[in-house]
């Protein structure tokens, strides 16, 4: 632990293995599962098919909430055949919904594969509904369709859609974009406050009545590596990005905070004073939790877009060797600082041909494979140890205090395989 940063050139210039074939990934609608918990006065109305509703239900895993703040307006034969005016139908469903749920202040009309293919204009619908129900209810549209978005890109599309209508400000300030669990968000705000960085606001906000303002003197940091459109939308509003490795693990968190501290002129002394104790805790926690991972190899299938920053954490802080790092898309502007830190060696792949990638994984025999839910059990049955990736977006993993937990998420499947003893005692 605490090994000095290796003198390898990093992977910034490594060519990508680009593949096109069957992609085994979720669509952007899946992001609704966590976004609706984060935005507590928002309702996500998917305009789509029974498949969309079934996906949300299956991806949510368990149906914890009796009446969740998301639903699907299921298109029927009459909507498609032009027998019914889909816009009028939508108005009717929204009216029913809002009269039943007066607590809703933000309504997201979420486009799906079918609504995109039939070119149902949800932007027009959002404008119309906004003027009908505003200002009490703000109606915004974005697409979570699987022909345009992959898994976490749904969050990106959602956040990006809210940015054009944010109020303007000339104030010098920091905006942090990316949905985080409340406990982690509070830890982050605590660290920034201790550093004397402020004012700070966070996207998305829990409630509509506390909007974030943005303008030319705004700088922003991202906590999630999949916020490509959000990045672009903030830049269009005149804000400036602070590129940094993502705040996973001790090293990532420190680098992320340091980029902000540097921008806000925080002294090195102050920085060390604030971060020394949590850094030390994080290092110790990672050292303990990552023991089963040391000198083990890892293969990451494309899933959540977190793969590159996580590979950086796993290779540099947990002592693993990355064999392949797959991502649905690679946005070098955003994950570049993480790529720079990854020691040379792994294959970086973008996109997917799942059968070919499975062949590579089988040939490489990694000690741990990170993959989606559809692949995990079949690979376990073939004798490969897996970590299902969706847990990484449903679990608090950012910043110092979660660094040990993050290592633990990867270590648990390895430990499990170790402890199960089913043979007769010799």
């Amino acid at each position, binding site marked *: 632990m605490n090994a000095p940063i290796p003198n390898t050139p990093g992977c910034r210039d490594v060519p990508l293995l680009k593949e096109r*074939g*069957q*992609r*085994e*990934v*979720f*669509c*952007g*609608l*899946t992001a609704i599962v966590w976004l609706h918990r984060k935005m507590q006065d928002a309702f996500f*109305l998917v305009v789509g*098919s*029974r*498949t969309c*509703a*079934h*996906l949300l*239900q*299956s*991806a949510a895993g*368990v*149906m914890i909430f*009796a*009446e*969740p703040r998301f*639903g*699907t*307006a*299921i*298109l*029927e*034969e009459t*909507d*498609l055949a032009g027998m*019914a005016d*889909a816009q009028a*139908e*939508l108005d*009717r*469903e929204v009216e029913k*919904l809002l009269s039943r749920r007066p607590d809703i202040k933000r309504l997201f009309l979420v486009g799906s*594969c*079918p609504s*995109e*293919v*039939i070119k149902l204009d949800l932007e027009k619908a959002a404008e119309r509904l906004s003027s009908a129900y505003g200002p009490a209810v703000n109606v915004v549209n974005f697409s979570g*369709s*699987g*022909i*345009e978005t*992959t898994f976490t890109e749904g969050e990106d599309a959602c956040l990006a859609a809210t940015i054009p209508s944010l109020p303007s400000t000339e104030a010098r300030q920091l905006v942090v974009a990316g949905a985080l669990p409340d406990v982690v968000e509070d830890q982050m705000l605590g660290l920034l406050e201790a550093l004397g960085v402020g004012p700070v606001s966070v996207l998305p906000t829990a409630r509509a009545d506390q909007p974030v303002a943005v303008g030319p003197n705004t700088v922003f940091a991202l906590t999630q590596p999949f916020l490509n459109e959000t990045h672009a939308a903030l830049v269009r509003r005149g804000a400036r990005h602070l590129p940094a490795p993502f705040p996973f693990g001790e090293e990532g968190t420190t680098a992320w905070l340091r980029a902000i501290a540097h921008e806000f002129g925080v002294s090195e002394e102050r920085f060390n004073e604030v971060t020394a104790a949590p850094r030390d805790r994080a290092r110790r926690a990672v050292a303990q939790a990552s023991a089963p991972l040391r000198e083990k190899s890892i293969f990451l299938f494309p899933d959540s877009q977190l793969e590159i920053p996580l590979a950086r954490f796993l290779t540099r802080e947990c002592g693993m060797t990355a064999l392949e790092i797959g991502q649905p898309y690679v946005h070098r502007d955003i994950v570049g600082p993480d790529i720079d830190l990854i020691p040379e060696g792994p294959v970086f792949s973008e996109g997917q041909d799942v*059968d070919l990638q499975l062949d590579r994984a089988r040939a490489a025999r990694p000690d741990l494979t990170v993959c*989606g*839910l*559809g*692949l*995990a*059990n*079949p690979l376990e*049955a073939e004798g490969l140890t897996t970590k299902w990736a969706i847990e990484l977006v449903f679990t608090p993993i950012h910043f110092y205090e979660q660094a040990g937990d993050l290592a633990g998420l990867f270590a648990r499947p390895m430990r499990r395989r170790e402890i199960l003893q089913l043979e007769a005692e010799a």
Partner: protein
Amino acid sequence: MKLSVWTYEGPPHVGAMRVATAMKGLHYVLHAPQGDTYADLLFTMIERRDRRPPVTYTTFQARDLGADTANLFKTACQDAYERSQPEAIIVGASCTAELIQDDPGGMAETMGLPVPVIPLELPSYQRKENFGADETFFQIVRALARPMERTERITCNLIGPTALGFRHRDDITELTGLLIEMGVEVNVTAPFDATPTDITRLGRAHFNVLMYPETGEAACRWMERELDQPFTKTVPIGVGATRDFLREVGEITGLTPKIDETRLRLPWYSASVDSTYLTGKRVFLFGDGTHVAAAARIARDEMGFDVVGLGCYNREQARMIRALAKDYGVEALVTDDYLDVEARIEALAPEMILGTQMERHIGKRLGIPCAVISAPVHVQDFPARYSPQVGIEGANVIFDTWVHPLVMGLEEHLLHMFREDFEFHDDAGASHHGGKAVSPADAGDPPGGAAPRPPRDTSEQAKDAGQVIWLADAEKELRRVPFFVRGKARRNTEAFATERGVTEISVDTLYEAKAHFAR
């Protein structure tokens, strides 16, 4: 357009996947965008399957739409054939691909693949998962099965079990044993574990056993017509139904119905005195039509419950369920809207729900025990142990499963006696379940969520004609009624008062009503 929160059934192509995944040597090429690959996890996670479903998705993207999605389909189809070397291929479209009208069936047929290619037309915007499974299996049978010489010994096919079915795996084992005892061998079980080659041999059987009409009826009707194979109409879930089923098999085959009852425990368990407390328990049933119909009979005739309501989510069975409800003197609920089901359960305030995964959630919210009798189900309903629903062991399993969520007999009496005891009270819950008891002092809000509604201040509402108000003493007395009958006591008392034009309910009214309704 209709707003849906949770769905009982997936889209029809998921039904097709249930057939493809159940079978061996069959591959499904599905024209679909990438998001539709979520369906794999239904099988690998919920059912814990150890291999990927044999499905190739074309996973077209927005940029492909203007270009050549048709070619993408052909490539995917060719690759899938070369990689999996299946005995037969089914091809179709998911909801999005249906809109772009590429005609996967037509394209695949022109590709000259050396195996049968079976096109599927599954209207995604009209029909649902069960239809998809039924239609897919029917198309496979129609394409591959031919009349042929019967087996020498009397054999049948078991038709209907699929992947992701409720206890289909164990039902096959139980049913096979039951038939063997009677002298009938199983020729082919399908789709579960059958290969396309097995499907070509369906015609050898003397008759078909239709295990689940939801997923096998269209095929059975076709085989009756084209292969001259009669099929059984009774689904052998429950003791009475199992006996009826064997009689039906006897009528078809000329064999004498035989049943080895040494393993059968439900009748004695039901008759034994400990089960007295089950008498007249008010149950509500919801699920697929087949399982609900079977469960209703068991509930009333074999457990001694009182069926207070029933319904199904698959409208294919609506007529049968409506007729059944009439027979039981209740109103049928045919809906796929989870909120309608919740509202009906809330209104009926049953003491137990026999339902699906969804009703388990409803029950949890309303504080009503629930046992699962039908798909859709979650991972815990694919148990490691042998636990069929059909036949003799099925009846035993059902007895255990249904009794388990309830508070046990003597425990229930003790709760009656000491209902305000500081430790032994309604909200302590059943002693054999987990979860920490809420002491009455800690429970601020309506305890246990047990009463259908928190005690109401009804004085405001009394202005409405026909409304009755509860006097404070009566309200307090009502709260002493154990939670599992409190809703019923409230409704009965209110009905009693309204009938007699009484506008204020006193303690006396409560006990007058109790005497009136006493059985």
